């Protein structure tokens, strides 16, 4: 009755759910009506001519900095979470170190974004 066995059973559970969902999906595909019509192949475009290649391929530069900072700062919460979970109630040094770390991260985030 180990935790690793529970992990395997969880994986089996996911597969069972996936199979059940797939069966529902496939059954629906067989039973739903299919009426071929050329206009159904086209993209929806509010009554205008569809423009499938007029699609944005790049991010707006203004927002790019958010993505860049996001990729750097997404690691910070995990480190914060791991740090705060390991603190012992009586260790003042641990509190100081983690608080300092959080403060520096907050200041860095504010300075970079502004």
């Amino acid at each position, binding site marked *: 009755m180990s*935790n690793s066995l529970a992990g395997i059973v*969880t994986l089996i559970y996911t597969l069972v759910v996936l199979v059940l969902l797939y069966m529902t*999906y496939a059954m629906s595909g067989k039973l739903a009506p299919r009426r071929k019509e050329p206009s159904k192949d086209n*993209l929806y475009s509010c009554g205008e001519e569809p423009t499938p290649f007029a699609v944005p391929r790049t991010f707006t530069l203004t927002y790019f900095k958010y993505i860049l900072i996001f990729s750097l700062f*997404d690691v910070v919460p995990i480190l914060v*979470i791991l740090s705060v979970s390991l603190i012992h109630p009586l260790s003042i040094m641990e509190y100081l170190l983690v608080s300092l770390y959080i403060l520096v991260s907050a200041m860095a985030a504010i300075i970079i974004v502004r």
Partner: protein
Amino acid sequence: MSLLWVFNDPILAIIYLILFPGFIFILILSLIFEWYKRKVIARMHSRMGPTYTGNRGMLQPFADFIKLLFKEDIRVQEADHPVIDLTLLLAPAIMITLIAIFIPWFGTPFYSFTGDVIIIYMLFSLVSTLIFLVGWSVKSPFTRIGALRLLLQVAGFDIASLLLLAVPIAETGSLSIASIAGQMPYILLQKPLYLIPHAIAFILFIVSQQAEMEEDPFDIPHAETEIVAGHVTEISGRRLAFLNFFRDLQLLFVGVFTGSIFIGVPFQGIQTPFTWIGNLLILLIEAALILFILFVIEAAAARIRISDLLEFFWHNVIPISMVIISLTLIIKGIVG
């Protein structure tokens, strides 16, 4: 106590996997939460909401789900259909598994380990983000803009919501959902100083979850009337049914996860049938109350711009989260 005794008996195992708390029970529960959402929002709008199917329209989400399954699945030429199909099958499957493993169905979660709070929340966040593939796989300006907006939105709220998770973790000193949920009510009662940072963290966390679920005022990726339906514009029939089902699962997850982490359950670890049922009922009531707040916000608020969302989370919520974590640590230093 592990729940693996269930799997010693094949019949019990099948019941567990398929009926309760497996696929069918979670499907029913999530559709009930959809009905609850539609009723609350309708009341806020001075409407009746679903009334026709079932008692007080309770079966309306079931009827809608079945109706959509038997509608024509219109597939445009300019799209990568296998990617859309795979996304819409995998996303609900992973969500059902996440819900099934951390809820204390029989007094204890099926699978609990140190760090599960991070893993389960990050998987939820990842699966919610993966929905952008549904829009990105269609060569329509509306779907592509919706998909890009979704990614930008994630860049806004994801760090904030992860940081806010650090508050209950710091209070309890645990990285396991079961342990946090079990300790939380007693910690808040015994150490009321925690209540101030805890309440602020709770409010900010549910606001970030509103953004995660793409609900008003953060429904920017699928902004109706502005970019048609954003990343889900070309979805119909069974694919729309699966997408709606996924949205219902998101509702259920947000309710029970936030309830477990920020409010907790009082009888965790006490192994009697009464406490099993009690814990489950308390958790579902907590989920309903948390979602009620979210539905009221949804019904009352108008959509904000993506730049405002990013500014709100980066300039306000993230710095406040850092301050709250520091405050929680200081309180922990004082009260132990």
